[in-house]
Each structure stands twice: as C-alpha cells, then as structure tokens.
C-alpha cells in the first residue's frame, strides 16, 4: 500500500511540474523535445558537479592537510 501512495504522490508531483512549465498544454512531440532538453540539462549539471567540483574539493582538502602537516613537522623538529 505504501508503494501505491508513493507512486501516486510522485505522479502528482509530475503533474505539478507539467502544469507549472506548461508542458500540460504541449503536443506529444513538443513534450518529448522539452523533456529531453531538461534531462540533458540536468545530466550536464550532474557531470559538472562530479568532474569539477569533486576535483576542487579534493585539492582544497590536500592544501589543508599540507598546512596542518607542515605545522606538525615544524613542531616536531623544534622539539627534537
């Protein structure tokens, strides 16, 4: 039963999307065009997140680790 109500809810959400972006009024081929454009945009967004943002975040973490590491090394050498 929970699966059915979830399915209904998702379908209702999709209907709201259709109404807001006026794809409710479009002919089928226009809908295909519009949805494929949207999916391409979303896909590009995910790829950009994966490719660039991940690299930036890892570079930033490495820098931070180096800073901390340097501090530790300096402290260790002084103690020595």
């Amino acid at each position, binding site marked *: 039963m929970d699966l059915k109500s979830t399915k209904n809810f998702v379908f209702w959400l999709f*209907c709201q999307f*259709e*109404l*807001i*972006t*006026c794809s409710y*009024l*479009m002919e089928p081929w*226009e809908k295909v065009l*519009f949805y494929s454009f949207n999916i391409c945009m979303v896909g590009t967004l995910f790829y950009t997140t994966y490719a660039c943002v991940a690299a930036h975040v890892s570079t930033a973490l490495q820098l931070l680790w180096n800073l901390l590491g340097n501090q530790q090394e300096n402290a260790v050498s002084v103690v020595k």
Partner: protein
Amino acid sequence: NHIVHNGGLYKRPFNEAFEETPMLVAVLTYVGYGVLTLFGYLRDFMRQWKIEKCQNATEREEQKDFVPLYQDFENFYNRNLYMRIRDSWNRPICSVPGAKVDMMERVSHDYNWTFTYTGRVIKDIINMGSYNYLGFAQNVGACQEAAAKVLSQYGAGVCSTRQEMGNLDKHEELEKLVARFLGVESAMAYGMGFATNSMNIPALVGKGCLILSDELNHASLVLGARLSGATIRIFKHNNMQSLEKLLKDAIVHGQPRTRRPWKKILILVEGIYSMEGSIVRLPEVIALKKKYKSYLYLDEAHSIGALGPSGRGVVEYFGLNPEDVDVMMGTFTKSFGAAGGYIGGKKELIDYLRTYSHSAVYATSMSPPVVEQIITSVKCIMGEDGTTIGEARVQQLAENTRYFRRRLKEMGFIIYGNEDSPVVPLMLYMPAKIGAFGREMLKRNIGVVVVGFPATPIIESRARFCLSAAHTKEMLDTALKEINEVGDLLQLKYSRRRLVPLLDRPFDETTYEETED
C-alpha cells in the same frame, strides 16, 4: 427567521480585498509563459519554413513583401497560447442558461484548430458562468407566459428605429416603469447594453470636455469616451485620492494649451466591476462630485438587481439619493433575463438623448417580447405582481454570495473583490492552470468561465463565478466540493492568510474568530 440585510444601513463596513500575488507564484507564472513563448517561436519558425502546415490566417503569397499583418504580440499570443486552451471558451449550450444548463459535447482532433460535435449532450451542468443574478433566465413562469402572449400579439420584429415607426406603447410603459424602479424622473431604454454606453457618451460630452475614467472600466465605456473626442484621464481603480488629485488639477489648470476652464467634467465609474468583483466607493465619489462641481455617469450593468435591500442597485446599497447621480445607466441583460440597456436621469437629459443619441436615431428598437420580459421581471422585483418572489430572490442572492465567498476563502483560495458582490474571481495565475481548471470542472459537470490575457493583466488570470438566486444551497455545496477537489489537484490554494472558520450560530461568550498567519 434570519434575514440578510444587503446594504440597508448607510454606515456599512466596506470589505474589499485584493490579496497580493505570492512571489513564487509570479516567478513560476513567468517561467510558464517563457516556455510557451519559446515553443511559440519554434512553431512559427516551422510554419514559416513549411515544416508544419499553417492553419491560421496569413497573408497571400503576393503580399509577403508588404508590411506584415500578423507579427504583433496579440496575434502571436493568439496563435501559440490561446489556441492551446481554446476549448474552454465558446462552448455551445442548448438549453435555457438557468442554474443548470445542457451543453453540446465537442472534441478536437487537431489540438483545438477545429472542433467536431460528437452528438452527445451533457445534461445538467451546474452553471456558474451565466449572468443570471436573480434567476430570471427561465423558460417557465410568469415572465415567460407574459412574453409569449406579447409575442403572439406584436410579433418579434419592430422594423424601425425609435424615432420613426418603432416607438411602441410597450416601450413607453417600460420607460415609465424603469424610472419608477430607479427613483429618477425619466428613463430611456435601448436595444443593446454595449451600444447604450458607446453611443450615448458621445452625445453627452464632446471636445473641450474632460472625462475621468476608472482604470478598469469596461470596453463599452472606453469606446464611448474615445468616440466622443473629449480629453480622457485615468484614475487608479477605486482610488479616491487619485480621483481627487485629477479633479484638483483639472480645476486649477483647465484645458491643456489655452488654460480655459473645462466645459464639463464627467466621471465614469461602474457599480460592480465584473473582472475584479469590486464595488465602487459611491458615497465618496458623490461627495467629490459635489465639491468639484462635476457630473457622474454610473454604469450599473452588474449591480442593478444584485445589490441593495430591494434590488435597486448600488445607490440603494449605500443608502444614497438617486438624484445625486446625474446619469444612471444599466443593462437588462444581467439581472432581468432579457437584453438591452437603459439610461435614467432628469427629464431634460432624457429628452435631449431621445433626439441626439445615435442609438435612438439609428438603432432598431427593442423587440416586444423582450420588453415584456423586462416589465414582468421589474414588477416581480418591486413586488407589484402581488407575490414576494422578487424579494425572496434578492435575499437568496445575498445569502448565496456571503456563503460562497466565505467558504472559498476558508478553503484557502485567493478571491478578489468586495464581500457583497455576486461576481467572484478566483485567481489561477499560471497559463496551464487556466486550461486545466476549465477542463477539470467540466469533467465534474460544473461550467465555469476562465479569463486570461487580454481581459486581465498577463499574470493575473482567473476563474470568474457568477452567483445566482436560482442556485440552491445543495448546488453551491456540490460546486464547492468540486472546486475544493480541483484546487487540491491543481494546487490553487495560494492564500497565505488562513481564517479560522466563523461558526454559523448566534454569537455567545465562547465563540470568537481568530486569524492565524
């Protein structure tokens, strides 16, 4: 026995509200229009390059190099946006437009470019769209019998104008009755309400006069004002400060170049504005008119019969003197179940209009059965036919209005206009919801009128309900249940002010009303 007082007291609370558009809704509406515009350009491109068949009007091949005829925004909107939702308008009905109506079913196989009738008739659709405020759109009853008798006596056509051979004794009787109903000295009736406005304003004002017209006046008033040749200045809708400022400027500065005083200043207002559901602030307008010595033209198309304790319009609703309004205009289409318009006022004014109005000189006079329908319905409202049907209907309309508006507000829709106006606009905003609302309501057997651009501003599209004394409480409850369902389905409950429901029983110490934000 609880009787609803519809404006019997002068000191009456004036409850009018126009809730602001929520920001998110406005942004999403623009998004929707943006997407449709892009697809509109795509379709136009395809039509121009012959990839798609062009089904709308275009110029002929030889005229393609001339100045283009169909490239402006109105035509673009028509081709690409209006065509997609066109099935909500021009629906053919095949019975009397009373509280319930029959409609012919039609389908379109090429996305609303052409329609075909399936042959089936959808019966008993609850009619929330007809201007039938007092329920006189009937094919049974006293009005219909009287009209049938007159039809068999006079026939249907008059075959002449009022000034030549078309002045029947029925017309004289009607005009005396209308003058008595309104409380004015004299009245004149015309065959068409639109023509009453557009043909009589040019007869009253001319060049050298000033017209102060409300922002949201009807097309007939605008057309009449433009045809007259007078200078037109617009004041903000129902805004008395704006009107006073314009009046002051007009008196102080006079005509634009010559600085001479204006020959006449005419204020054009309507009793109820049909797209907003708002009522004019008549006491203030009359006070301003008297202070600045100008004239008032009041168009009571929707308010005659619908407001006031005995249905005599907005002047009675506020408890004012009908002699303060210089020109009282109204129509017989809405509350009287007939067609035509009238103008009431002083005897000299009406005698002048009989000779100089275009409508009186050139237009065919009213058809006799229609005149008889109006005479019978006015007598019924006044109570002169010996029954209390008219009084009961006026009270029923007031109760229906209060009930319907209260329930819709409680559900959480944004409703514009005054608490007492029987015209109820419900805001839809997004273009896809205009089409969806019309179709969904028809599926549930309720007929509504949806309005979009150009009748309203482009993001403020709405559904307009017209209440009627013929609607029973059961019909209204059914309609409200379906509107609630469709509102949840389409997410139309935009209002951010939720009122805790006011209980329908007499006030005692334990009941109270709260507002939660």
